[in-house]
Structure formats: C-alpha cells, structure tokens
C-alpha cells in the first residue's frame, strides 16, 4: 500500500485569451485518462458542430454561456490523478476583468502554470497573472511556452520568452521559475517528452507537476490551532474542535490559549475513535487540555515560543472584488480564520499598478484593484503576516448590507498599537514598571523584527507594557516622506528616537527594530533616552541576502532601491553593544531569551 499514498497538488492554470489554456488542460486530462469516453463523445459531437476535429478546449469549458461565447468566465476546478499525485486544477479566466476570479484560484494553489503564446511573448496579462500568483504566496511558477509548432519548434523564440519573463520577475523575491516549450494542440511535451525539440532537455509538463516540490513555501510560524467549536457532550468532556493551520503538536506539549494567555498542556489529540500522537498543519482534529481553558470559537492555541500577534490594527494588501468601490471608514464584516469581527478601512496608503508593479496614490479601490490599506477591527485579530502563514495572515471583507464578499486581504504588517496592548492585557494585572528602550540594530534580514516580536509576546505574557517600533512599518506611516540618503536616515532615527523616548518616560518597554546604520545617530538617541539597551543583531551579509525575507536585497541588486545598507550604503557596527546576537549561529529562541533576560534583570535593578 505504500505506493498508494498519493500527495495532493493544487495548481493554478492561467493564460491570456487564446493562449491555449483550455486546450492544454483538456489535453492533460485526456492524456492522464481523466476524460471518460462518453464525455469525449459529447465533445466530439460538439466539435463537429463547429466544424473542427477534436477540440480539447470543449472538455473544460463548463457553463453554457461560456460554450456559447468561447470564453472562460469563472474559476472552474478540474481533477485528475496519476500514479504519483492527485491534482486539483484551478482553471482561471485570463481577462483583466476577472482578476478577482484569478485571485480566488490562486488563494489555494501551491504552484502556478502560466501560459505564454510563443509568438505573442510576455504580455500585460502575463505580468498580471505572475504578480497575483506571487502576491497570493505562490513561489513556484511553471511557464508553459505554447504553440511551439507555429515557430517550427525553434529554440530562439522560446529563449526570448524565457529571457523576457526572467526580466519581468527579477523584482519578485523567492520566486522559482521553470520553463517548458510545448504544443498543447498536438501534445508535444505535455504528457511526455517530445522529439520535435531535441534542444530542450527538461521534463514534460506532466513530469514537472508530478515532481515539483510543494514544501517549504511558507515561512515557519510555530504551532497554530484555530478553534471552530467546543465539543461538550457531557460534564466530564471538553474538547476543542478545530484545525491545525501551522506547525505541529504532540501530546503533552505546552500551549498558550490566545487571547486569554492561559498556559496548559495538550492531554489528548484525536479524530473520531483514533488517538493521535502528533498532528500537523492542515489536519482537523479534536484536542483536550490539562486545564480548563477560556477558549471558544475564533480563539487560537499556539506554542509559547512563537505566538501570533493579537492586534486591532493591521496593514494589508486588499484585493477589491465588488462592483461598489471601497468606502473608507464604512463598517465591514471581517472574517479571519474562524473569527468574525467588524472593522473599517481607516486609510488607503496607495494602490498598485499591476502593469508596472508601481505604487500610485488613490482615493479608493475599484473592482479588481489592489491596494495597501490600514484595517481597524473592534476586537483583537489573532494573526501573522501573510508571508508567514496563509491562514492566519488572510481575511475577507463582507458588506454587511448585502452579505457579498467584497475584498480579500493579505496582512503585511501586524505591528501592535498602544491600544492593542491594553486590550491584550484586559484580563491581566498590568504591573507598573520603569520604561526602557531596547534598540535592535543590524542589516536587513538579520532578524530584528522577528526577535522584537518574540520578545514582545514574552513581555505581554508577563503582563508588561510593551510597544514595538518597526522602522519598516513606520516608513509607511510616520516616516513615509523619508528616503534613504544619509540625511533622511538620520531624520528617520531621530523621529523613532523621539517616540521611543516619550514612551520610555511613560513606563513602556519599547522595542525598536531599525537598521540604523550610523553609529553617531544611535549614540545620540542613547544619550537622549538614557534607559537604553543596544542589541546588535548580527548575521553576515551573504546570509541576510539569502534569507531576504522582504525581498529587498533582490530589488536592491536589480537597482530598484539605491543606497541599500550592505549593498551600496555603509553599515557601522556597534563597537560595544550591550548584547550581540549572531543569528546565523544561534536559534531564534536563544536570541529572544538573551534579550528578555537582560530586560528582566534591568527591571529588577530598579
């Protein structure tokens, strides 16, 4: 039976009108035995009516309106299986008008297959599809260069498409691309290697999707279990029914209930009559705990060393899907994991021109437009960044009047606001303590934000008052007028220092994550604040560049960000930091603990 264990691969298939997508999918289904004879007969019949020989595209065009207009207007899902994998294909419409359908298909896909007509090359549509796939978290794209028969199976056309496409994706970080020249119509390089293109040495499309890796496309965020309901059949049993959306858990593992912050251990993991020793991401199970928890639908369980952020303010990319435009400050319903909240969009920072990937100012978002917004919710949202986890990092907006789904949201920043700290601590006695600024300096990608968030949750759990100031987030807000010249960088640090100082004097522990490359600027902030810990978050440049969690190095190398620290701007290391963390040699946990211990010992001294 071992070889019977098949994996599931969900992939997105996109292309411009007439690139041959329906034909390609019809062909894949046909060649893998996914089309039954009687279906084929009805396709044959319809093909003849149109005066064509077997038209594979008819296999996939589902709705009557589509068959009549020969266009694909909605996402359709197709299924086929080979010996190795079962495939779910999200077949999405090509036209710009249907961007929202494309987004829908991409939201659950692991891989994208993007069709390009070798004669037309990279089009506006290709950009759009690629960008949306990337935005939705797809990190592996197979470019199917179609209609090779028309150019006589010559390599030159294929090479040009590959070059153009690589140029297009240079700015999209962590994207892995594969190129396959094929002919959907005759099946060359679709289900098996073609001998018409001896210059191509790679796999056929079917081979590629059978073997492409689907692991590791999501940055690790620790254990997350979202509670759907409480199962309480009798006095002595209280189980939490829900789904593991990240990481894994074992019996006896320590967990924290969010937002109540209670700690306990998992006593049983089960599904139906089966007891499980461990569970992993995407499993639906029932979990019981040693202690009775205040935990219900919408709440979460997480591992203590890595908690989600509980916040009422997030910055998110919003993909607008409704015909009525976005209304700022209007009430919307927010569905996030199993939480239902109400919220408003308080600001539209910019919208994204998908044609150029540029940010442009805008008053609102119209259907199919994408923009960066700030969302405020009335209750705490328990979330991560979308780049860390697709489930805890995403939400939808619902119009309360007509119940339509109006937008998809992808969380970009989860910085805590002062009011969140209060809210997170409602059940806690907030201890009075002195203020302190912990200043994390280091190269981009060294680990400043991650460590700051880790320390923040540890302090919150201890009932302390804490605020993260993340320079990247502030550059979208307080410091959005600043660039990266020496003067602007000094001004950036001066302003952050000013805010940190105010908060410190109010008895808050301020965690600053800022590259802050200039020694003199850091020194003047330290002088001003006094209660100050300098942490050098250190990792060698090649390692930071390889991690590139925000894709900034890639952009800098492509010349899109001038004066980037480490590349073409200096970084002056601290000469005597209070703490030195070498994040390439130590674990995140040990880094967080080192900072935490120093903070706690300072608190004791005072």
């Amino acid at each position, binding site marked *: 039976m071992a070889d019977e*264990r*098949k*994996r*599931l691969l969900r992939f997105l298939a996109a292309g411009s009108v007439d690139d041959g997508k329906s034909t390609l999918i019809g062909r894949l289904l046909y060649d893998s035995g996914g089309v*039954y004879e009687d279906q084929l007969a009805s396709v044959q019949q319809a093909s003849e009516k149109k005066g064509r020989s077997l038209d594979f595209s008819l296999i996939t065009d*589902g*709705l*009557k*309106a589509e068959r009549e207009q020969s266009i694909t*207007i*909605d*996402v*359709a*899902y*197709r*299924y086929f*299986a080979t010996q190795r994998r*079962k495939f779910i294909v999200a077949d999405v419409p090509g036209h710009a008008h249907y961007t929202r359908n494309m*987004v*829908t298909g991409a*939201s*659950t896909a692991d891989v994208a297959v993007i069709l390009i007509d070798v004669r037309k090359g990279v089009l506006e549509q290709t950009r759009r599809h690629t960008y949306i796939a990337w935005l939705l978290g797809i990190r592996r794209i197979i470019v199917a260069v179609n209609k090779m028969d028309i150019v006589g199976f010559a390599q030159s056309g294929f090479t040009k498409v590959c070059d153009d496409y690589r140029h297009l994706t240079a700015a999209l970080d962590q994207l892995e691309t594969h190129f396959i020249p094929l002919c959907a119509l005759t099946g060359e390089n679709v289900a098996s290697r073609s001998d018409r293109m001896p210059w191509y040495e790679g796999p056929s499309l079917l081979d590629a999707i059978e073997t492409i890796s*689907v692991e590791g496309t999501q940055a*690790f965020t*620790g254990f997350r279990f979202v509670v*759907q309901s409480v199962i*309480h059949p009798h006095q002595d*049993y209280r*189980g939490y*029914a*829900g*789904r593991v959306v990240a990481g*894994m858990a*074992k019996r006896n593992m320590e967990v924290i209930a969010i937002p109540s912050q209670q700690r306990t251990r998992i006593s049983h993991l089960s*599904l*139906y*009559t089966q007891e499980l020793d*461990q569970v992993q*991401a*995407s*499993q*639906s199970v*029932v979990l019981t705990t040693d202690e009775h928890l205040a935990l219900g639908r919408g709440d979460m369980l997480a591992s203590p060393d*890595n908690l989600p952020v509980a916040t009422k303010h997030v910055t998110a990319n919003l993909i607008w899907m409704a015909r009525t435009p976005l209304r700022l400050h209007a009430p919307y*319903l927010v*569905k*996030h*994991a*199993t939480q239902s909240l109400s919220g408003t969009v308080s600001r539209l920072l910019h919208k994204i021109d998908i044609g150029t990937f540029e940010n442009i100012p805008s008053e609102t978002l119209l259907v199919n437009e994408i923009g960066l917004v700030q969302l405020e919710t009335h209750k705490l949202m328990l979330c991560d960044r979308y780049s860390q986890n697709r*489930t805890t990092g*995403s*939400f*939808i907006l*619902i119009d309360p009047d007509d*119940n339509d*789904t109006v937008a*998809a949201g992808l969380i970009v920043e989860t910085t805590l606001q002062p009011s969140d700290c209060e809210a997170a601590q409602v059940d806690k006695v907030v201890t009075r303590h002195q203020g302190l600024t912990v200043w994390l300096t280091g190269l981009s990608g060294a680990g400043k934000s991650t460590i700051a968030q880790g320390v923040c949750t540890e302090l919150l759990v201890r009932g302390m008052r804490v605020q993260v100031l993340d320079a990247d987030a502030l550059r979208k807000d307080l410091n959005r007028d600043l660039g990266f010249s020496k003067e602007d960088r000094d001004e950036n640090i001066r302003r952050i220092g000013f805010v940190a100082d105010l908060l410190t004097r109010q008895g808050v522990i301020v965690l600053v994550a800022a590259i802050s490359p200039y020694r003199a600027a850091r020194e003047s902030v330290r002088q001003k604040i006094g209660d100050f810990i300098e942490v050098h978050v250190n990792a060698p440049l090649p390692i930071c560049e390889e991690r590139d969690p925000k894709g900034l190095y890639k952009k800098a190398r492509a010349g899109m960000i001038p004066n980037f620290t480490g590349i073409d701007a200096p970084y002056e290391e601290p000469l005597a930091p209070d703490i030195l963390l070498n994040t390439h040699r130590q*674990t*995140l*946990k040990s880094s967080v603990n080192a900072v935490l211990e120093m903070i706690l010992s300072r608190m004791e001294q005072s």
Partner: protein
Amino acid sequence: MEGPALKTTPLDHLDALEAESIYILREVAAEFCRPALLYSIGKDSSVLLRLVQKAFYPAKPPLPLLHIDTTYKFTEMISFRDRLSRELGMKLIVHTNQEAINDGANPFKLGTTQCCALLKTKALLDALKENGIDAAIGGARRDEEKSRSKERVFSVRNSMGQWQPENQRPELWSLYNLRVKHGQSMRVFPLSNWTELDVWEYIQRENIPVVPLYFAAERNMLVRGDSLIPFEHAIDLLPGERPQKVMCRMRSLGCTYCTGAIRSTACTVEEIIEELKLFRRSERENRVIDHDQESSMELKKLEGYF
C-alpha cells in the same frame, strides 16, 4: 531555526480531503441555526455521513438527516437507510411530494425532466421550507458533471432555491462567507474536491457500509439497447421484452427507472476500485436525467435541484 525540527511527512490525498471536509462541516454547524444533511443513501452520502460523525465525535452530530423519497427508490436503499439512522441515533426526516405521486407522476408519463422537477426539486424545496432548514449539506462533487465544476463549496440560493452562476461569491482560501439574507438559503458541498475514485478509496480505508446494489450480482434486468434497467416498481414492458438475469452493479443510485446498471463482476470495494482505474466511462453516463439536453444539469441547478 527552531532547534531540532520535528519531521513530518505531508498528508496523503485522502487525509487532506478529509481534513478539508471536516473543517467545512464544523463551520456549517457553528454558523447556521438549522442545518441538515441531505442523505440520498448513495455512496457519497455514506462518506458524508461518516465525515459528519468524525467532525463532532464524541458528541452526536448536531443535525438531522433529510431524505427526499421519490417512492421509486430501490427497496434495498430504503431498508439500508432505516437501519443506519437507527444505529447512529440520528434524526431522520423523510419527505415525499405526495400530491404528485397521487397524481401518478412517473418518468414515463411526464418525461424525466418534469418528473425530477416534481419529485426531487419541488419536494426538496418544500422540505427545506417546512423544516426551516437554513443550510442543506449535499454530497455533490465537482468532478461529476461540467456545470458542477464551477459550483462553490458554499452556494447561496435565492428564495426559490435557485443557483445563480454568474453571480457567485468568490471563495478564497478556506475563508467561507456563510452569511445569508432572510429568504435565502445555503447549499453546502463538503465533497466538492473529491473524485469518484477518492470516494471509493475512502470507503475502503474507513470500512464504510454502502448499499449492496453497488456490488455486482445476478439481477433481474431489462436490456434496452446499451442500457440495463432494473426490473422493479412494475415498469412497463416493451413488446416482446422479458427480464433476464444479468451480472451487473449500479455505479450511481437514483430512482429505479432512471438508474441504469453496468455489466460488472466487481463484488468488493477493492474490485470496484480496480475497475474504476481501468474504466473510461463517466459515472453519470447511465443516468438518464443528464442527457435530456446538452446542458440539462445546469438547467436543473438553475431551477433549484442540486
């Protein structure tokens, strides 16, 4: 970076499908007042029933079963249904469009389209209304028929139970918008992403009981052209026609008149799976109802049938 990471292998396809379906079922139970499971006694319903048990275990599933009985079902189906609901201790609601039956509705008199409209679609809509059901969970799969490939997991229906394909809500990630307005209702399809083969593999893995009609046996059949029609419910014979014993099985179950059988020797779940892997004909082929017109299933869905 998290110390010695615990190694996990990705879930296999059945585990992944199961987890998704259970998640969907729990969402329904959490957010609707009166959900019901449309239980058709077929293999998909049997899988759905097991998933419902799993989703809420050790509690009893918090929803009743609803069966739309056209009175033309196989007797084996009815006894199977009654035994199962008794064993599981779940409430069973059976609804029949008695008025139409009294008027003598049958597919020969009315044609399959009209017969289904009365005995299935109308009966279903009436049953939902009478019992105040706001979410009806069904076992339909997207791979069954081409208009179903665009169906959502959560499908909003207007007050007439009708599907509006050009006006569907986008369904992103596993974030389902479960809100309906007064008068609207929800159809839910937790098996959307399953294929026929997945269903049988799951039946095998979980040891789920199914109606014996799925297994090959010598049965009394009428052979009409390529079709095998069960000799039940006093079907009218054509001139010169006589029932004969044929080794066959049902691939999908509906009313006796409209469910053709296939010639087969597959007597166990294992054999059915083997047969399916070789089989090149679709499951609904021998169902008369989809073939009336090229888009007939789509038209039925527009009217409020599943």
